[in-house]
């Protein structure tokens, strides 16, 4: 069994504060405040950019390097999932379709 140490607990508390500060950043203070117009327009593009920045490396990279083969279960699973989404809409169907493609390729063929 791993042991608990104070330093790790401190890290956890620090990270918890980070969660609160980032999630509440612009509504912690009561003072009236507005975004500049360009930033407000930028808000329209930022959320999808954040998601893409997180997931694209998860799909096309292995241990920090761009994959060199097309025989990667993640490519087919992501394509199948996105295909389902644009055909039928629906988060659950996307996950199920993607995993139905991913697991056989990954566990069966070792891709």
């Amino acid at each position, binding site marked *: *069994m*791993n*042991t*608990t140490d104070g*330093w*790790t*607990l401190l*890290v*956890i508390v*620090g*990270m*918890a504060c*980070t*969660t*609160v500060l*980032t*999630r*509440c*950043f*612009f*509504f*912690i203070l*009561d003072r009236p405040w507005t*975004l500049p117009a360009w930033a407000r*327009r930028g*808000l*329209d*593009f*930022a*959320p*999808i*950019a*954040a*998601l*893409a*920045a*997180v*997931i*694209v*490396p*998860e799909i096309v*990279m292995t241990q920090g390097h*761009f994959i060199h083969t097309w025989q990667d*279960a*993640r490519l087919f*699973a992501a394509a199948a*999932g996105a295909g389902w*989404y*644009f055909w039928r*809409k629906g*988060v*659950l169907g*996307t*996950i*199920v379709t*993607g*995993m139905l493609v991913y*697991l056989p390729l*990954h*566990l069966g063929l070792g891709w």
Partner: protein
Amino acid sequence: MFLSPVYYRHAEFRIGARDMLLTLPGFAAWGLMTGVAMVKSGMSGFEAVMMTVLVFAGSAQLAAIPLIVAGAPLWVIVAASACVNLRFVVFSAHLRGYLMYLPRLERMVTGFLTTDLTYVLFVRRFPEPAVEPDKRIAEQAYLAGNSFVNWFNWCTSSLLGIALANVIPSAWGLGFAGVLALLAISCSMATSRLRVVSALVAGGVAVLVYSLPLKLNVLLAIASAVAVCLALEKPAPLPPSSRASANGGDA
């Protein structure tokens, strides 16, 4: 807050809960693998449970685990999770319009519980902040139902992962279900040509500068994508010389 009967008896509470339930398997698999990853990195059961309940941010947790293992300084780990969480700062600017009438403590609890998916589903259902009191209650009820399901699912699946850490091989790659859930949400946001451009630029930049420390690639990717989209939205007038050569190309 979701503890209030005004919210959990409201019809919107169930709608919010249902919207989140549809994504539950993907995030349950993700929570499970995060639980496994925390214990496999050498954290104790107590530490892993505390992290699940208090930090409540899967991508930041997964980014911090290798840093904790490597014994990185506290400020580096906190800075790294802040970078991974920067997208929430963007969301909070948007949510301000929906939450400012609430007392500060309630705002902060609501903010803490509002993850990516809750934010996206919430602004999809309520594109404009309400002004009338009953519509505001409906908004908060939806938010409460949605985040309650999300928080409960995250905690139970992570705790299951912590308990089963030595039984589930990470080679199964169940965590990929979480990526698929985020992929589906990205697709649901791809409603304009510029948003598609934004996703492509961000994805490309995130891969190109992946080797940057502290997950700064995510931040640079967001900044580049937003800059490109703002530039494309209002194209600057071309200087006369390049306009002439562009016309020459057409001829």
